[in-house]
């Protein structure tokens, strides 16, 4: 059961219970809807970019603990970042959750709690849905789908 404890760490359970930035932003500069048709997880992501800086990020939607916690942690991590820093973080996060579990990964601070999904390949999409939605929002695509 140790893999399970790695997956459902207290930080993840806490962000599932009390997701941060779980709200809408009126008329945001960027927005996208993320959808995982396989499980029905759906989230709306709102990003406010001023100049080149992300000044506010919020999300709403329904999903499992992993997808909700990942979205919550992501919104916390993005505030104050530039768009290029956000894009770089997307790439780095994606690498962390898709690297085989027996190989070392970069330490991404709080975001690293999601590295536990590597033991559960079927749950990687839960952790990456919010990030794919971010990418779609910043690239001005309306919909991100994990399929």
């Amino acid at each position, binding site marked *: 059961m140790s*893999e399970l404890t790695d997956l459902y760490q207290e930080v993840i359970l806490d962000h599932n219970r009390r997701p941060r930035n779980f709200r809408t932003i009126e008329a945001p500069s960027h927005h996208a809807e993320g959808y995982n048709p396989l499980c029905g997880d759906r989230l709306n992501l709102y990003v406010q970019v001023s100049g080149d800086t992300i000044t506010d990020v919020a999300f709403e939607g329904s*999903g499992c603990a992993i997808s909700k916690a990942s979205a919550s942690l992501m919104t916390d991590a993005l505030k104050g970042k530039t768009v290029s820093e956000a894009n770089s973080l997307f790439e780095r996060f994606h690498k962390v959750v898709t690297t085989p579990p027996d190989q070392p990964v970069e330490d991404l601070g709080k975001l690293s709690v999601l590295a536990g999904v590597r033991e559960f390949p079927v749950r990687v999409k839960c952790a990456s849905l919010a990030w794919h939605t971010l990418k779609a929002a910043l690239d001005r695509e309306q919909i991100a789908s994990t399929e």
Partner: protein
Amino acid sequence: MAIDRQAALAHEDAVLEYATGQVREIPGARIIGEARHKTGVLSFVLEGVHPHDAGTILDQQGVAVRTGQHCAQPVMDCYRITATIRASLGIYNTREDIDVLVSALDKVRAVFA
């Protein structure tokens, strides 16, 4: 060896009836689909727990269920839910399997308590 179809169906019905009663007793559990003459499937949701999280934790305890929308999105909309946990029972399942499922579900509830 031939399988007696009537006996097989009767066994499935008996295990389903037992499972339905046991799952109904779980606090926060709600059974989805209670047709009187349904086959050996038991779909349900647990309050405060997404079915996919439940599925992963059940899997770790050796219990295989299907979770998600089961390619039945309109039914999910009808019940105003996003997904269910579904145990499928066959002639090889026993009451003891159901007891294992129920105690594994206790663990799921403990993680999300």
